[in-house]
């Protein structure tokens, strides 16, 4: 078991996982949520918290390739898994990802607070379904709220990145 009691009586967990392609081992408090782990312990600030209850999608990350709301997951659930945050979304050769490019050129980034979550969710979809239709994209992004764009330019950005 990797769980033990710390001096303060808090339950401590030795977490092993991969973060953006690098194997990581961390001792964490068992009650830590995944987003607290990402923003607080890993210092990766691209993942945002908009509601803390899994409704807005600003905190979306990939866990084993699947888009999840990191505010709803405990950090311990990452044990033995691969985490990819927005900082780990890269194109071929390590440059900009096609989604990042198309979000920029299509004008899909306004305030940008929901952008990391939207890109992560779109990446999960396009990995799973490279030929996703507009309807597929709309459905996939239902869990990512954006108040700035009206989604029009977000949807065209995802369509542009499709197949790249």
């Amino acid at each position, binding site marked *: 078991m990797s769980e033990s009691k710390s001096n303060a009586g808090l339950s401590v967990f030795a977490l092993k996982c991969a973060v953006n392609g690098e194997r990581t081992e961390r001792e964490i408090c068992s009650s830590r949520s995944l987003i607290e782990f990402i923003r607080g312990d890993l210092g990766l600030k691209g993942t945002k918290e908009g509601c803390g209850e899994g409704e807005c999608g600003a905190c979306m990350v990939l866990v084993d390739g699947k888009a999840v709301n990191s505010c709803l997951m405990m950090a311990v659930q990452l044990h033995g898994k691969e985490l990819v945050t927005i*900082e780990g979304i890269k194109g071929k050769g390590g440059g900009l990802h096609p989604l990042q490019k198309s979000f920029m050129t299509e004008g899909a980034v306004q305030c940008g607070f929901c952008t990391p979550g939207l890109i992560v969710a779109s990446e999960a979809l396009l990995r799973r379904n490279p030929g996703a239709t507009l309807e597929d994209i709309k459905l996939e992004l239902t869990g990512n709220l954006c108040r700035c764009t009206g989604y029009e330019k977000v949807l065209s950005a995802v369509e542009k990145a499709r197949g790249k």
Partner: protein
Amino acid sequence: MDAKDLKVVNKPAIKMDALGLACGEPAFTDDMDFTGLLYAKLLWSPHAHARIKKIDVSAALKVPGVKAVLTYKDLPRVPHTTAGQGYPEPSPYDTYTLDNKVRYVGDRVAAVAAETAEAAKEAVSRIKVDYEVLPAVLDTFEAMKDGAPVIHDEEDSKNIPDAKHNIAAKFDFEVRNGEWFKEADHVFEHSWTMPYLQHCAIEPHISIAYFDNTGRLVLRTSTQVPFHVRRIVAQALKIPVKNIRVIKPRIGGGFGSKQEVLEDIVAALALKTRRPVKLEYTRKETFISSRTRHPATCRMKAGVKKDGTITDAEMEITLNTGAYGSHALTVMMCSGSHTIPMYRVKNNIRFIGRSVYTNMPVAGAYRGYGATQGFFAWECLMDMMAAKIGMDPVEFRKMNYIKLGEGSPVFKAMGEGREGVEQVITSCGLFEAIKKGADEIKWAEKKAKYASQSGPIRRGVGVACMMQGSGIPEVDMASATMKMNEDGSFNLLVGAADLGTGSDTILAQIAAEVLGIKTDDIIVTSSDTDITPFDVGAYASSTTFISGGAVKKTAEKVRDMIIEVAAKILDQKKEDLRLEGGKVVAKDGSSCSLPEVANTSLYYYNQHQITASASHFAHTSPPPFQANFAEVEVDTETGKVKILDYVSCVDCGTAINPVLAEGQNDGAVLNGISHTLSEEMEFSSNGTPLNASFRRYKIFSAADTPPLRTFIIPTWEPAGPFGAKSVSEIGINGPLPAVANAIYNATGVWLFDAPFTPDRVLAAIKKQAPSPAAGSVKLLH
């Protein structure tokens, strides 16, 4: 000059912060770590109206890690407004950082700062409060009656016109040219209502207060109004303005909600603890305890002649401002001043406005700023009149809308919180906007097709036209500073607050256009009260028009300084030189580069920094115009309304950046559509919010979004920078009336209460039966 001469402006430059944001670079208030950070939590009132008889914080102070607990006893009692408006603010001074009275469920009671968020929460739960619960009033019309509970019974509040009747703001005016409705063949009167609505910026309200190495208080905060935050926090906590620095990092949406100064409490906690303190609202707190749109009842009465002349118009608007009067006067006045001038009214105009205190959440600025409430009524009434006289709604609007060169007595009579300014329309693309929209939605074809329908599923088309302003004339002021670097790049310092709108980018485009360079040779620093010059902030659709004007003037001064130096280098007359393609070019073809100019000024000739500042304010507020068209499908058995197509044609003068302008409009329109079909804050009978979460307060997601098309209709506004007017707010005003009018076209049923949820639509259809074609229009003549 016109748009075809432009090289940088009116082109789709990529938003300069887009790369960092798309890669998740730290950019927002909470993306910076602070050593020794304390976490703030507030105790919120569970009562709609109560006096604090006793408050005991001793148990809270004993919670390990707690560093401060503040109640009203610990703070100066300074009546102020949280409305981040120009000084002196037209909103009543009726708010205290903490008070011995609470006026709505969610009002501040006490504040805690602790080493962890958990400890702060625990301490909040241990504050013992003995409340004397007072009778509460939740309804605006009840609140105005004699004997209603008086919400602001304190003696030290200021500028409340009638506290005894809970009236936070009132404004009436009348233009009289004869007997009311004498010439009218038909007179219509009805009331339209709008509920409590939330901005739903995805980044909640967040501020971090800390001290710099000289002991000055720094507020890193998600705000639209950094300079007003500095002034109002100084006022509320009685500290000098010079001791405060406000920094606005990237902010995750505002829509008006962050035109509100709520930073006083986190500043007070920092002052008490001398430690950095972070206050971040939860989503629930953002719903309840930040700000909302003013719920409204808008009664309109208008007369029309058979030939389509509008004879008289009267608007009576009653806004619910909630427990405090933030923006109470100005939103109310804008509900008339931005709407009534839309159409010519031949004889009489009357406006009666009240903003009323209730024991409900506090309303404030929200995109549209009253015009949303006013246009719902005015644009539906337009369709009622058109239907009665048998005129096509599009033709009726074309006949009556305010034309180029025309004014309105309303412009002068009603400003924002005071008298307005006289103005005539100096640019108007509404004719083209209406034509384009009608073509795109296939207005004539669909009107004909939908004239005879049977079965439970009915389709219809609707139109609405709108206007807004571009800044507040003779009130809003912006300034900018530029300086030139050795490599021919420039720093542009602006007070303007980019809240995700892209204003940093469009302001750089304006400067680049003047200087004949590329946008990416401009480095923009915005919204830091220590570094950037003053700007009122991002509100009133002012940034492009007012801040853009300041940037243009600044860049022109810099251009003149560059030409001065280049004239020496090239041994040419100044008037023979122009800036083009990163060079100064003479008539004879000789040229020098901008780095050469910069280095000459810095190191060789009459050594000086090429730098300039300029300020800008305006004497008019040129309105942008829009025509919106909606096609809907109504299931008359379930009441469900589906928007099949939505077209929005916008005249914003020159779009400085067409992609960003379209994006502004798409977002505004979808927010309006979401208001139309879904959004409404719900409350229990004692004023407790019931749906303060994204799960239960439904805003539109990608899957809900109908096909939405924005078309920019170019015009040239002579008063604006490179012909530009505003674009950010206007689009939110269209969907309610356009969809209501489309539902009428589909079913013969008018809807008066937003949102048009299936239950409301079904109830209206049932009420209407059995003669759906007659409409529910109340005919007075």
